[in-house]
């Protein structure tokens, strides 16, 4: 008992200063990709980036290229393949968005420049009514729809004392009946479909659908395999997309807090 107390004092308070202070991510962290328009010479380079990409996230166009965060696994194969060093990765961890289109980076912008003035994917918070219901208490039912356990692990991490998601009134619950939102990870292959549908039906309305991780958004690496995992949108329209392979816990937390209008 005494030892427990001493150890508790020794291990100190560890909760992150976030959101008061921005998180410090490792130097080699790969966040939002940057495309240097001036350097990119699609056409003359044989589209090296697109052919290196394992998930087909990159499309080339006459006037440059587009990179879909909803397919990207942040492997940086494109960056190494590009002979003009036109692609690089920033440490920007704020990747979540509310519309699928805004996950596509084109001409240095996420989505069409007109409707998304920011340089990260557009995230429109919940409307007033939903916010009044959920912004101070959001219960998540996480479903691993054939995730590889990395997304699951980093969702779990949100509950540890560093991220301490409960301080925002957000928590994971066991029963879909107690859930305000379904947070789905994994490509949702055919063997998971029925279970996810049943879980969805069991959660009361209104409910928020969150697709966390590239697999959940599009099936990612698995979309063309025989298991037919093409992501959450095959079944329901997500209200929030959180790209990453897996998304960093701060990426998830940031998405949730902005959706709730908390930051």
């Amino acid at each position, binding site marked *: 008992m005494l*030892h*427990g107390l001493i*150890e*508790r004092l*020794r*291990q100190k308070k*560890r909760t992150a200063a976030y959101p008061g202070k921005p998180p410090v*991510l*490792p*130097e*080699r*962290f*790969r966040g939002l990709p940057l495309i240097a328009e001036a350097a990119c010479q699609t056409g003359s380079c044989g589209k090296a980036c697109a*052919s290196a990409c*394992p*998930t087909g996230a990159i499309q080339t166009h006459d006037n440059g290229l587009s990179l879909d965060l909803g397919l990207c*696994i*942040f*492997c*940086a*194969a494109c960056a190494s393949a590009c002979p003009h060093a036109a692609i690089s*990765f920033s440490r920007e961890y704020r990747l979540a968005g509310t519309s699928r289109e805004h996950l596509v980076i084109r001409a240095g912008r996420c989505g069409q420049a007109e409707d998304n003035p920011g340089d990260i994917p557009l995230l429109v918070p919940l409307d007033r009514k939903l916010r009044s219901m959920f912004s101070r208490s959001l219960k998540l039912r*996480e479903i*691993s*729809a*054939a*995730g*590889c*356990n*990395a*997304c*699951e*692990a*980093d*969702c*779990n*991490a949100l*509950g*540890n*004392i560093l991220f301490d998601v409960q301080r925002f009134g957000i928590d*994971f619950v*066991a029963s879909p009946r107690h859930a305000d939102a379904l947070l789905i990870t*994994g*490509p949702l*292959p055919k*063997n*998971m479909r*029925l*279970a996810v549908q049943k*879980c969805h039906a069991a959660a009361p309305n209104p409910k928020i659908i969150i697709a966390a991780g590239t697999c959940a958004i599009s099936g990612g*690496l*698995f979309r063309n*395999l*025989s*298991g037919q*995992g093409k992501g959450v949108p095959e079944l329901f329209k997500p209200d929030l997309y959180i790209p990453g*392979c*897996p998304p*960093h*816990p701060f990426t998830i937390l940031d998405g949730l807090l902005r959706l709730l209008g908390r930051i």
Partner: protein
Amino acid sequence: MAQFITLTNGGSCPAEAVPVLRYDDFAACLKDEVHAGAGICSFFGVPHARQLRLYIVLVKKDEATLAAGAMDVGQSYAALTPEFPALHLFEREIYEQFSVLPQGHSRLKPVRFDGTDSPQVGDMDFFKAEGNDVHEVAVGPIHAGVIECGHFRFQCLGEIVLHLEISLGYHHRGLEACFNQNPQKNALPLMETLAGDSSIAHAWAFSTLRESLNHTAVTRRAQTIRAIALELERLANHTGDLGALAGDMGYLPTASFCGRLRGDFLNMTAMLCGNRFGRGLVAPGGVNFDLEEALCLHLEKKLRPAARDVYGAVDLLWETPSVTSRMMEIGVVPEQAARDLGLAGPAARASGLRRDVRITHPLPGLQESQLTMQVEKSGDVYARARIRLDEIHESVSFILRELGGLHGQAEPLRAGSAGAPGVYGRPSTFGAALVEGWRGEICHTALTDAAGRLQRYKIVDPSFRNWIGLALAMRGGQISDFPLCNKSFNLSYCGVDL
């Protein structure tokens, strides 16, 4: 007398050098090897001239080598499971994948529900106990926590579990089949997401085979960086498991300390390669990121206090009698059962098996790892927890030693070339690689065709061998012990479902 061929770990040989034996000889060789203490790592089918060729890979006990052999079977053959129970799931898998019937196998149920005429996933003829007071408990596929999916079916008499049957396949994504067509550019990322908490281990096994089949010699430096990353992976998961065990016992201080510390180890991996799960670090030929002197020092500065905190957090468990007694004699897997069923990793070592390929079958360049094998006897939750703590100590000293040794070694990080598209390696070659991941030994086997393309790529995650251990551990126990037993194994669903 017929014999299996001997290979080194991570080695390869011409495909025709793998002896194709008659059934009786195959069974006799297998018996000799298993009696001499060899463990079964992999057993799989490859269609061959309108028959099915079954390959086996074994890890020898007293020599640092592997053994491999094959036999051809037609529509059916006498099941090997009755004599070698460790093959039970392998034969089920072969039946599901190729409809070749192992006659005399008593439970030919689906494994992944991926056959063309497979029933709906989970639709299985579960073993049933009968009697007035017997009841059944069904759990999953979706579990209460933030965890992967699978179905558990308990047959209970009151609180006592008579039998637990585990039905998986929910995470089946179609991973293995896609390698059998060809290594696309997504092969390596797929390896890293096959079982996400073992990204480094699977990527390493894959890369080792690719190197072996292309005669690529990896530098000592690259191999050392991989080994450090593998131990960081082990540290993160072992720490997380100890915390989760504490949580399930209701001992919250350790649960919350370890939850944070697990993240610290993941962050160290991210310092190395940018991703908390080590994605992007290992690649055929070596590694993509260096551990420069400054980073070594930085890592060391993070590792020492984190290790100290883990010891502090976990020692609390061992100082608290109500905690240790909760773990003792719960979920016991006797040594003989562990051996017969072919368990791997900490689960095997907790039952007294001396199995750790880092020590017995080190990969090239890592012969002097100075790791000590951690073995326990009691085979219970306590032993599986203790092994983890002892392995944490080992891994920490290993990393500190190796970080010191990295200074001043100027060696390239990547060797070899990518090779022609579609070509995997030398034509008509067979290779096998074992990597001791945190859950146990991972076995990858590759077979190329006459053009050097992949004909078959077989992945065996230790979970494939260990789920049956969990089922056995529950027999005769209280159903309320299930969460604790389950955590003490902490197996992967997607590693089995592929």
